């Protein structure tokens, strides 16, 4: 890991020095253990703050949209597989041009899910930790525990099919061999009845407090005005009424259908632990089965929901 970080810093310094980029979006150490924070580096000197490890869960493609970032000029961006796919999706959707970004691919072994970690230590405060191969030793007041990294990995990472950025200009570390066994997360939702599925989602969504952290963390939620913020017309109520909240999540899912890259940033950002992943995964499958499209792989692709084909299946239409 140390090794990758050193290489990463050197790569970034070089890019800045040679004026290949004006600003680099990356990660630095957060203020709490197991947290990283996005950083924006315009000066070579600051490149030593860069880190890259399993705490780097934010999807950095989010920042490509910000005008403060865009106005800097050419942007370098550190990209795990999912960040890379989100960047590709931005290019597909004409939000940024390929030549406006320098994509710095990194070797990613997955990021952790803080919620899983908290559960493992009984929600006690963690003061420090150290990594020994595949083990993580966490320490807090009156406890010390050794955890396996695999057990606290984010679900989206366990299921990840594209650990390497599909497009990059430089790559730090070695690309992850795709053959590496990463198994899909299975849920039995499909085999339940309508009512049972409704009951499941009702329970899950009733945890939602409408903070919109999921939307704010999503790299593909970049509309200047989100439908939930509109007041003229006001599509749906803004209080955490179950019907309104359900509809917020339905529309959020529809708006990200065919664009979501299953990075898991939304689920990780949620303060109340709503598991949003099944919605995105279901849409990803439908879009692939129906329209043969997988988001974020090909910069030349046409977005499936802005496209059509005479042969599209219409078995559900009378």
């Amino acid at each position, binding site marked *: 890991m140390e090794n990758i970080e050193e290489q990463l810093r050197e790569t970034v310094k070089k890019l800045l020095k040679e004026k290949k980029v004006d600003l680099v979006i990356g990660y630095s150490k957060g203020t709490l253990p197991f947290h990283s924070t996005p950083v924006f580096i315009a000066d070579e000197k600051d490149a030593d703050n860069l880190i890259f490890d399993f705490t780097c869960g934010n999807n950095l493609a989010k920042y490509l949209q910000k005008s403060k970032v865009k106005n800097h000029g050419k942007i370098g961006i550190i990209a795990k597989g999912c960040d890379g796919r989100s960047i590709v999706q931005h290019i597909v959707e004409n939000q940024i041009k390929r030549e406006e970004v320098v994509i710095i691919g990194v070797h990613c072994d997955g990021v952790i899910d803080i919620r899983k970690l908290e559960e493992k230590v009984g929600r006690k405060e963690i003061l420090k930790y150290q990594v020994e191969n595949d083990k993580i030793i966490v320490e807090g007041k009156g406890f010390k525990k050794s955890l396996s990294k695999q057990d606290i990995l984010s679900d989206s990472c366990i299921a990840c099919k594209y650990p390497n950025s599909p497009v990059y200009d430089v790559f730090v570390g070695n690309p992850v061999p795709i053959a590496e066994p990463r198994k899909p997360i299975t849920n039995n*939702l499909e085999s339940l009845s*309508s*009512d*049972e*599925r*409704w*009951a*499941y*989602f*009702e329970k899950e969504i009733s945890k939602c407090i409408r903070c919109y952290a999921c939307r704010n963390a999503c790299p593909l939620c970049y509309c200047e005005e989100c*439908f939930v913020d509109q007041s003229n017309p006001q*599509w*749906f*109520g803004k209080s955490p*009424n179950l*019907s*309104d909240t*359900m*509809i917020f999540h*339905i*529309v959020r*899912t*529809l708006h990200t*259908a*065919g664009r979501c890259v299953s990075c898991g940033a939304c689920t990780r950002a949620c303060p109340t632990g709503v598991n949003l992943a099944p*919605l995105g995964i*279901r*849409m990803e499958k*439908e*879009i692939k089965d*129906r*329209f043969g499209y997988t988001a974020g792989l090909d910069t030349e692709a046409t977005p*499936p*929901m*802005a*496209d*059509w*084909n*005479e042969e*599209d*299946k*219409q078995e*559900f*239409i*009378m």
Partner: protein
Amino acid sequence: MTEHRTPNTEHRNWEPKILAFLCNWCSYAGADLAGVSRIQYPPNIRVIRVPCSGRINSTFVLKCLQNGFDGVLVSGCHPGDCHYITGNYYARRKFAVLKTLLEFIGIEPGRVQFSWVSAGEGEKFAEVIKKVTEDVKKLGPAKKLVKI
């Protein structure tokens, strides 16, 4: 939570309210033809005329379910016949995704339905309305997504 579907018998006098979005150029004209041809069909639909099925925003459908409609029908021109050439092709993709998602979160498949009805298909229009009304009747009043 488990008893979302109230058996029909409890609602002997209940008649479903169904909102039908009909595109101006085909399905609305089809409905008109059914009318002037005096073809009988259930009186359960309320019609909103839209310029094209491509005008339908998924939020329209959700808003109907939230405001207490028991069923929603969206109908447009047959593929290849859209007045705006490709409106219904785009719509078809939108509808496929909407339908899948609604069913996935647990909305009964019969609640939201889609059809292509041309201006010459008065008979088909009546058939579609009969089918949707029957399906929704079987499901009983909508409970999920209704705002209380």
